[in-house]
């Protein structure tokens, strides 16, 4: 019964959704390659779920197109789209058993013999023998897998996942992430995954789009986004960054010179998104190394001096806060590899970094240092 899957990427073109005066999704354009695992990452209220619902057909776009291959499906009723969804709440039918839940889509399309397919699908999600149970008799993780099987059995061109792991506890979530990735590789269907969990997005997705206030801030491979974020929001939403407010004074010899808080720094031009005017000089906390005094800084590295105000031991690493002379607290993560000596709280210390690990981002003139991660709160118009 394998249905011929016509080739086609999923393309969103100038997609906009307004609810009254509120613009949930603002002129969004992106392409999801066929067969890839794509994550839409953002804080709650950033428009990622609305985007997903427009692809599913549960929300009609105010303007723009949703293209599957060459076909615009933006105005097609949801039951006419070759797209299936794994809902955040699972939305399993409580009056049907697991078998009938999984068979639902096939039956609605008038397929009579569903037994083999349902059995195969239940074993793919490792729920063999659960067919006669009711959803309420299953644990959260099992319900999640039923929801996945119920969507996958239809062999959609695109599978949408709306925070499907949000209700699971941490350990189960990690396990399901690996499971989902395995299944995606196995079935080769395009997955579009909406999540606010950056770690989840990075673990699973080939491509991540970071959304904020209805727009895409950055799109790319997880490592590329993490190593060289495009905006201050991305730098502190995907992980954490120490962003120092400075002024770039132009490029020379492959480096961009920056003055921040009275000190001169330089960043390779290839890692600079601006070479003059107000900028943020960014370094990830794990790229900072803490030493006792400035003469321990190796040649070619740059440093700032400060006082250690806090050290939290979290097992794999120790997280320090270093208060600089101008009052900003920088985060420094030191891996507990046993090679570095612990630094005492209250003492003076120097944090140094390799300029090739720093990055330069354009900055609003009014913006100052930013070192704390973006919390998962409704973001509104921050950026």
């Amino acid at each position, binding site marked *: 019964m394998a249905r011929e899957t016509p080739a086609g990427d999923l393309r969103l073109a100038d997609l906009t959704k307004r609810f009254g005066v509120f613009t949930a999704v603002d002129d969004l354009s992106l392409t999801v390659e066929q067969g890839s695992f794509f994550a839409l990452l953002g804080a709650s209220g950033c428009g990622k779920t609305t985007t997903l619902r427009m692809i*599913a*057909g*549960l929300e009609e776009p105010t303007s723009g197109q949703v293209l599957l291959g060459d076909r615009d499906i933006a105005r097609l*009723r*949801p*039951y006419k789209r070759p*797209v*299936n*969804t794994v*809902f955040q*709440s699972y*939305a*399993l*039918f*409580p*009056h049907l058993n697991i078998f009938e839940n999984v068979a*639902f*889509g096939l039956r*609605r*399309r008038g397929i009579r013999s569903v037994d083999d397919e349902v059995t195969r699908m239940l074993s793919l999600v490792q729920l063999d023998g659960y067919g006669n149970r009711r959803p309420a008799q299953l644990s959260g993780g099992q319900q999640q897998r039923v929801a996945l099987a*119920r*969507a996958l059995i*239809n062999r959609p061109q695109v599978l949408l996942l709306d925070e499907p792991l949000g209700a699971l506890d941490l350990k189960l979530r990690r396990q399901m992430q690996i499971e989902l990735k395995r299944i995606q590789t196995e079935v080769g269907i395009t997955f579009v995954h909406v999540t606010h969990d950056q770690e989840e997005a990075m673990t699973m997705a080939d491509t991540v789009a970071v959304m904020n206030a209805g727009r895409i801030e950055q799109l790319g491979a997880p490592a590329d986004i993490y190593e060289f974020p495009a905006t201050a929001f991305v730098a502190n939403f995907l992980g954490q960054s120490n962003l120092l407010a400075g002024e770039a004074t132009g490029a020379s010899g492959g480096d961009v010179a920056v003055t921040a808080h009275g000190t001169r720094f330089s960043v390779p031009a290839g890692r600079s998104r601006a070479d003059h005017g107000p900028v943020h000089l960014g370094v990830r906390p794990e790229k900072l190394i803490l030493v006792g005094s400035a003469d321990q800084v190796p040649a070619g590295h740059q440093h700032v001096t400060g006082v250690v105000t806090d050290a939290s031991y979290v097992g794999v690493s120790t997280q320090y806060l270093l208060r600089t002379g101008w009052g900003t607290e920088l985060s420094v993560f030191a891996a507990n590899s046993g090679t570095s000596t612990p630094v005492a709280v209250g003492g003076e210390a120097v944090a140094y970094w390799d300029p090739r690990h720093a990055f330069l981002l354009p900055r609003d003139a009014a913006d100052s240092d930013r070192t704390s991660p973006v919390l998962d709160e409704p973001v509104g118009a921050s950026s």
Partner: protein
Amino acid sequence: MTLLAPTRAGHPPPAPPAARSGRRRLLPYLLLLPGAAWLLIFFGVPLVQLAAASLYDPSGSLSTGYAMTWAVSNYPDVLQAYWPQFLRSFGYAGLALVLALLLGYPLAYAIAQKAGRWKNLLLVCVVAPMFTSFLVRTLAWKTILSDNGALVGLLRDVHLLAPDGRLLATPFAVVLGLTYNFLPFLVLPLYASLERLDPRLLEAATDLYASPVQAFRRVTLPLSMPGLVAGTLLFFIPASGDYINAELLGTPNEYMIGNVIDSAFLVRLDYPQGAALSFLLMAAILAVVFGYLRRAGTEEVL
């Protein structure tokens, strides 16, 4: 125990476990007692009394007194005399139920799923007529449907009704009255069921290739079944025993079994006949209800 002692300090020692569990076991029965007593005195005793009356000698009267003769023949006798009214009762109640479902299901669905902030107001509108007496409302319908009323005049003018056609004193008026009077009993339990229906399940159904009609049949309807069964029973049982609507909106040609029982007890003073009819009606309704519940198969209702 010694380890726990400091935290227990200041609390009275717990009652011996045996005495406590004994009192616990009795508690449900104590809670049942008032209701059970009520039911026994005001339902059980009259029921036995009525059962006895249905077996009295039919030739007795209030003035001469009744003799208990175990006259089982009362039953076939009344059935033979009044089977048309029996049939009519269930026919009218069934017809009214169909009409009420056509009106009530969409209404309950709209209030539960689509009304938003108007939900409570609409619910009040459904219940509000019950604040006035059943009798007054039915009398109001009598005025509305009367031969020289505006409605009949209009229907005659647009030739939906013959020039001498009428609405009052027809089966139509009686069925309409039944539909109107018992509609809230259908709508409220249905509303309660549909209110619990998670709209995300409908989204999931449409996402899984169910057209709106299929989504209704496969998700909405099965999930509203408990309310639907409860509502149809709450509608059908009083409607089939009703006599006010036939009395006020119909003629003796539209009389239902309730009217016959009414006149047996209050006009003809034929107690054995009235009691036998009452028991037959009860048996018939019970048969219909059990047959229905078996078919509907909703163990949640009972």
